[in-house]
Structures are given as C-alpha cells and as structure tokens.
C-alpha cells in the first residue's frame, strides 16, 4: 500500500461538521456568502435558458433573417420573446400580483373568497409541486452526508406510493389518526426496504450503490406496471388503483381549487427532523463521520456495515414519504406515471442545497416555483416545459463547478470547501 496512513482525528471531523452545520450558515454571517454561489448559478442558468429559448423560437429566427432591414425589430422580438416567457413563468409560479390585490379587495367588500382562492392557486400549486421535492431532496442529501449516492429515489418513491395506496384503499373503518399514519408508515417502510437492499449489497459485497439503486429503479417501475395490470388494478381493469379511503387523505388546508395540503408542512417538519437527526444525535454523527472520512470512522469504532445500511434505509424512507405524499395528498390513487422524475431532480436539489436540510427546502421551493410556472410558460408563451430541465442541468453543472461561476463574476476564492462526495467505484 503506497498511501501513507492518515491519523484518525475525530476532533477534526467534528470541527468540519460544525463548519458545515447551521451555525456556519447563520451565526458566522456566512449566510449570504454561502447562498451567493447558488444564486449566481441559478441566475446564470436562467440567462442561458433565455438564449436557448430565443435561438429555438421560430419568431426570433424569422426576425433575425431580416436583421439587415430591421435591426431594431429583431432585437425587440428577441427581447419580447424572452420577457413574455419569463413573465409567464413568474405569473405561473407566484400568481399575478395585481389580480391577488384586486381579489383581496373584492373579498373585503363582498366577503366572496372564490376569486382570491383562484388568484392564489398558482402560488399554492408551486408549493404542492415543491412538497415531494423536499422529501426526495432530503433523501438524496442524507445519502450524500453518509457518503452514498442514492440515484434510486425515483424507485423508492414508486414503492412508497404503492405501499401507501395499498394501505389506503384496502383497509376501511379506521379513524383518520390511525389510518393516515399507518399509510404514511407503510410508504416509508417500503422505501426503506428498497433503499436498504443496495445499502446492504454495498456494505457486504462492495457492489456500487449507483448501479444497484438504478437497477432497483427499473425493478420498481416493472413492479408498478405489473401491480397496476392486475393485482392492484381497479375493478374495471384500468391500470389505476382504486381510490383510497378518505380516512387516509392528507387533509387539504383550503377549499378547492387550492390543492395545498398538510403534506407541505409535514415536509418542512421532516426537514427539521433530518437536521436534528444528522447534527444532534449520535447515529447522525456516525453517518456524517462515515461520509466525511470512512477510515477515521472505522478507527473510531463506527460499525460501517450497519451505518451504510441505515443511511440507505433512511434515505429510502424519505423518498418513500415523497411517494406517500403524492398519493395520500393529491391523487388519492396511483396511476402509472404518478412521478415525473422527482427522484432524479432531487439529486440536483441536494447538490444545490449543499446537502443541508435548509438548503434542500429552499432549493425545493425554487424548483417548485420553476416547475409551477413552466406549465403557464408553455401555454402562454409556447415554450416547452423541458426548458426547466435544461436550466436544472446547467444549475447542477455550475453548482458542482464553483470555479466557473467565480471566473464569470470575478469572485475571490473565500475558502476552499468543495468536498469529494463520491470516490469512484471502489470505495
């Protein structure tokens, strides 16, 4: 062995953890600084997104074909296209401010709340979209903290949804305070099992979790297809599960059309619990220690196998909650494509949020607003929703490579704090 032995230092590890904890974020006045890079990354990604939108818009291309005759026209059409798209994005994600104010006035005068609810709908939809992101983002972030790359959140989300929906429709006659927790627990448990299998394989045989979680994803998709074809299909044989009993609903907070439900606050609470667990408990400390320096952790007596399995199981449980949240709070049944890539997007979220629960919540809100607005951008400004995915991809690249952002905006290097998350295949 050519490398020299590192001296185990738990002190160093705990110092390192202190720095990355909430304290550094708030107390040491680093809040702005640590948020600066992600904000600039998102900003730059939005600009690149604008360029892509302009270049692929037929109107803009047509205008630039005649640029020699009408240069101002070409510029204004380009600007107009981008502005319309991002205006639609904003209105789609937060709602139209003027309309909201008018609706509040109407409600003051007439007591009619319908219009206000209608005006608040885009905002609430964005929160609804952000909810599974928070759960799934926490799942990936927890894995990262433990030095594990869980690409399997999508599959864990599917099995979590399957288990929750099964408990939701097959049992009846239970009061809500028993039925709902039971359904949530089932979703967590299924996700935990789905995550623990790759964890166990990694710990026992060294098989890399990236490949195994991807395999588990495909198995989960096939399982869902199979169950929806027969065993869990509705009596009329459509590939949809029966509707869950109302006692398993995550209750709504406001009347329709606002779809916001308790799940959003459950997600915020879960983020707080994950923070407490990772930074205030021994088990959480062990997980972070294995993630930061597995060799030191082993010297310090941490059971690597058990910790690896635990990390993956908890990560899977969080992703399972994302699935449970979708079926219990929104759809009330399970359809074939009930997740639209939440599991994969959550990787971006964890990276963007620096694998910190607070960061994950904030970046989930950002993604929720982006995706909430994207639908309107498509219908009003005719820009395909996939532009959001491009922006997400660019954000990951920039967040992963802060040097590029620093070079663009000529920022000084404050402190090198990039941590190596994944160490190839062998470790």
């Amino acid at each position, binding site marked *: 062995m050519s490398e020299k032995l590192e001296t185990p230092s738990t002190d160093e590890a705990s110092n390192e953890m202190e720095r990355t904890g909430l304290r550094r974020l708030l107390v040491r006045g680093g809040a702005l600084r640590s948020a600066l890079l992600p904000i600039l990354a998102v900003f730059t990604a939005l600009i690149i997104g604008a360029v892509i939108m302009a270049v692929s818009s037929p109107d803009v291309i047509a205008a630039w074909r005649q640029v020699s005759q009408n240069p101002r026209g070409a510029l204004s059409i380009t600007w107009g296209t981008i502005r319309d798209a991002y205006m639609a994005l904003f209105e789609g994600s937060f709602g139209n401010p003027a309309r909201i104010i008018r609706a509040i006035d109407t409600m003051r005068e007439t007591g009619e709340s319908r219009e206000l609810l209608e005006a608040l709908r885009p905002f609430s939809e964005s929160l609804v979209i952000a909810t599974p992101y928070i759960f799934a983002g926490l799942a990936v972030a927890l894995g990262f903290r433990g030095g594990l790359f869980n690409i399997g959140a999508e599959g864990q989300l599917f099995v979590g949804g399957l288990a929750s929906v099964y408990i939701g429709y097959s049992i009846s006659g239970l009061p809500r305070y028993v039925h709902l927790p039971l359904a949530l627990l089932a979703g967590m448990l299924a996700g935990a099992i789905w995550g623990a299998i790759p964890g166990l394989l990694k710990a026992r045989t060294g098989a890399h979790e990236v490949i195994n979680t991807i395999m588990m994803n495909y198995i989960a998709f096939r399982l869902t297809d199979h169950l929806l074809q027969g065993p869990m299909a509705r009596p009329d044989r459509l590939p949809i599960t029966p509707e869950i009993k109302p006692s398993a609903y995550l209750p709504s907070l406001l009347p329709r059309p606002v779809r916001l439900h308790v799940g959003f606050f459950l997600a915020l609470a879960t983020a707080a619990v994950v923070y407490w667990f990772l930074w205030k408990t021994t088990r959480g400390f062990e997980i972070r220690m294995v993630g930061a320096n597995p060799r030191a952790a082993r010297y310090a007596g941490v059971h690597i196998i058990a910790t690896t399995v635990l990390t993956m199981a908890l990560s899977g449980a969080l992703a399972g909650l994302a699935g449970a949240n979708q079926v219990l709070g929104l759809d009330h049944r399970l359809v074939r494509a009930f997740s639209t890539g939440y599991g994969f997007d959550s990787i971006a979220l964890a990276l963007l949020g620096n694998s910190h629960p607070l960061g994950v919540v904030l970046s989930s809100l950002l993604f929720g607003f982006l995706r909430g607005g994207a639908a309107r951008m498509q219908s009003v400004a005719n820009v395909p929703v996939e532009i959001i995915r491009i922006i997400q*991809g660019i954000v990951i690249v920039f967040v992963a490579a802060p040097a590029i952002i620093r070079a663009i905006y000529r920022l000084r290097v404050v402190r090198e704090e990039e941590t190596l998350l994944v160490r190839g295949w062998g470790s």
Partner: protein
Amino acid sequence: MQLVAISKEGRDRRDIVLGVSYLALAAFIVFILPRATTGLKSTFALTSYRGGVTIKAPDLVIPTAASLFALGALVAFAGGWQLAKGFKRVNLVLVLVVGVGIAAFLVWATRGKSLNFTGMLVSSLVRATPIALAALSGIYSERSGVVNIGIEGMMLVGAFTSVVFASVSDSLLVGVLGGILGGVILAVLHGVLSIRYKVDQVVSGTGIIILALGLTSYLQRAVLNLYPELNQPGPAIRALPIPVLWKTPVIGPLLFNQSPVIYTLFVLLAVTHVLLYNTRWGLRVRAVGEHPRAADTLGINVFKTRYVSVLISGAIAGLSGAYMSIGAAGRFNEGMTAGKGFLGLAAMIFGNWNPAGAFLGALIFGFFDSWQEKLAILQVGIPIDLLGMAPYLATMIVLAGVVGRARAPAADGQPYEKQ
C-alpha cells in the same frame, strides 16, 4: 481502499452461501421444474427466417425431463464441490451456474413447444450492441481515471444529433458522424469539468445526464415537432451480408448478416484490446488511470491523456446513441436510451474494465432483454413485467457475487492535481 475487508472467514462464508445456493437451485431444477413434463420434448428451432430469407438448420429436440435432470445434476455437483473443496475461480463458476440455471429454465419453458433459438441469439446480439458500445465507452474513460456516469446522456444526445444530421443530409453515414459529434461535445464538457475544474466526476456525469435529457426533450418539442422533416432519417441502417459466410446456418444470420454498426463493435472490441494492452498509448492510459503522479513523473501528460480518453469515450457513446436511433428505431424518441448507458456501466464493471469481459456482460443483458418477448410467445405463465425484471436482478446478483474481485483503476474518479 477496500473498507469492508473480505477476511478469510468472510471468504469461507461466501463459499458456504454460494454452495448452499447452488444446491437449492439444483433441487429446484430436479424436483420442481420437471413436474408434469413426462414424455414432453423441448424443441429449439435453429432455422433462421430473418429478412425474408430462410437459412435452414435442423431442429434441436431434447427430452424435457431428462435434460432437466442432467442440468440439475451439473449444478448439484458444482454446489457439492464448492462446499467440500471450493473452486479457485469462484466468479467463473458462479457465472456458469447461473448460465446452466437459465438453460434449465428455457428447457422447462419450451416443454412441448418450439422456441426459435437462432432468432433469440440474433435479437440478443442486436440488443446487446448499444450496451456493449456504452461499456466500451466507459472503459476508455475510466481506464484513464475519469468516471463517466454521463454515458447515458451522451448516448441520448448522439441519438438526437444523428437523426438531425441524417435527415438534413439524407445520408446515414453523415448521421452516424453527427451522432459521434454529439457525444464528443458532451464529452468535452465532462472533460473540462472533471479534468480542468476537478468537479466530482459522478456529479458532473449526473449533470450531463439531466442536461441531455432536458436538451433533447426540449429540442424535440420546440424544433422536431415543428419541423417533422428533421426527424425523418429514412429507413434504419440496413444489414450488410458478408459474402458466402452469411448463408452458414445459425452463425450466418448471427454474425455475418448484421448492421455495419455491429461489425464496427467487433472491430472496436479487438482494437481496444490491442490498444490497451499492446501499445505504448494504452500503457500510458492505464498508468494515468492507476497512478497519475507516477505517470506524470515519467513525463506522461496526464491531462492530455485523460482528455483524449474522455473524448474517445464520448465518440463511442455517440455511436451507441446513433445506433439506437438511425440504426434501429429510424427516428428519435424522447428518452429513447432508456437506461442502456447505465447497463453499459454495469457490463463494464462486470467485465472488470476489460473489453472482452464487458462484451460478455453486455451479451447477458441483451439476452435477458430479448427473452422477455420470446417467453411471452411461449406463454410460460409468468407475468411479462416480472420477466422484464430479470436483466436488472441478474445485474445485481452478478455484481454482488463478482465484484469482490472486480477492481476499478486505482485513480478512477480522482481529479489529478499537478504539483
């Protein structure tokens, strides 16, 4: 660094687990499968009807029950030997036993019926091709010490650009070149991020996948759907029969009447092997992947070697994508690579970062991919979606069983910092 050290006792326990599993499999083959198969025969048809041309070959007809007993006895012997004495080449035996188990399953599924075996082999190879190319792509990158998880994304972009290039130029060859170009462009991004900016390579690869997924879906909606003529590369690349040889029974339709891309794959496999193990350049690549500092000291340009390897990796991934779109489907569909890039990485690990082994791994995936539809024709009574899990389960089992000996290049995934 192997954290979970496989100790002497661990190895012994593994021997016991494997031996008992083999015996259980043998019992299943001997006692459960032969039920109600007395007097039935399994027919494996070897005649090929591909492309309207019949190449005759005699059928292979075997008695179902007796064959199952024979196969079961083989597995039982392996299990007994494993428990009593242990094999030197545990992994090889594991692969062989799994193979015998699959053969037994096929014999059982074909009881009283006929299975077009040649057709199954041909379709396995066809489906294995993009996976094998992805695995080769991974080998180039990783042998130089750069983990490339983004192959899936490079394939997707390659599939997209090849369709556009082929549609515009009306030439499939230009299309293939366009696909290669698409893969290379993303590889440049991956190279700059992971070599110059020393970004965590797995993260960079993930970013590339998400970017590729978004970019191709967006451009399909925003451009291809408006100008459908850009998504019409014409009929898929045609098979190119090799004179005389293609009429050989079984082997002819399998090896000598295939798409030029498949011939390219064979050539690439051979070239890669020679390049890696018999040339100065290959030695340098491997040195850079194993110990970049030492290589640097000896005057090898680590960065340049890695860049070249990653670009080759991107080119092959692009070719793989082109094969999936203009080579098979004849158009671009959203997310059409469907995890083939990841399966390629699994095949690469299975093959211990060697071209031949990776190809074998890819063939296994291709086989499982094709058996789903063939077994659906036989109506074995197992839901098709559950059969569809087989390639993924096989990957996990094989990785778990084999990986103990699989060894990644030592510097795989580590950015190199010049001092």
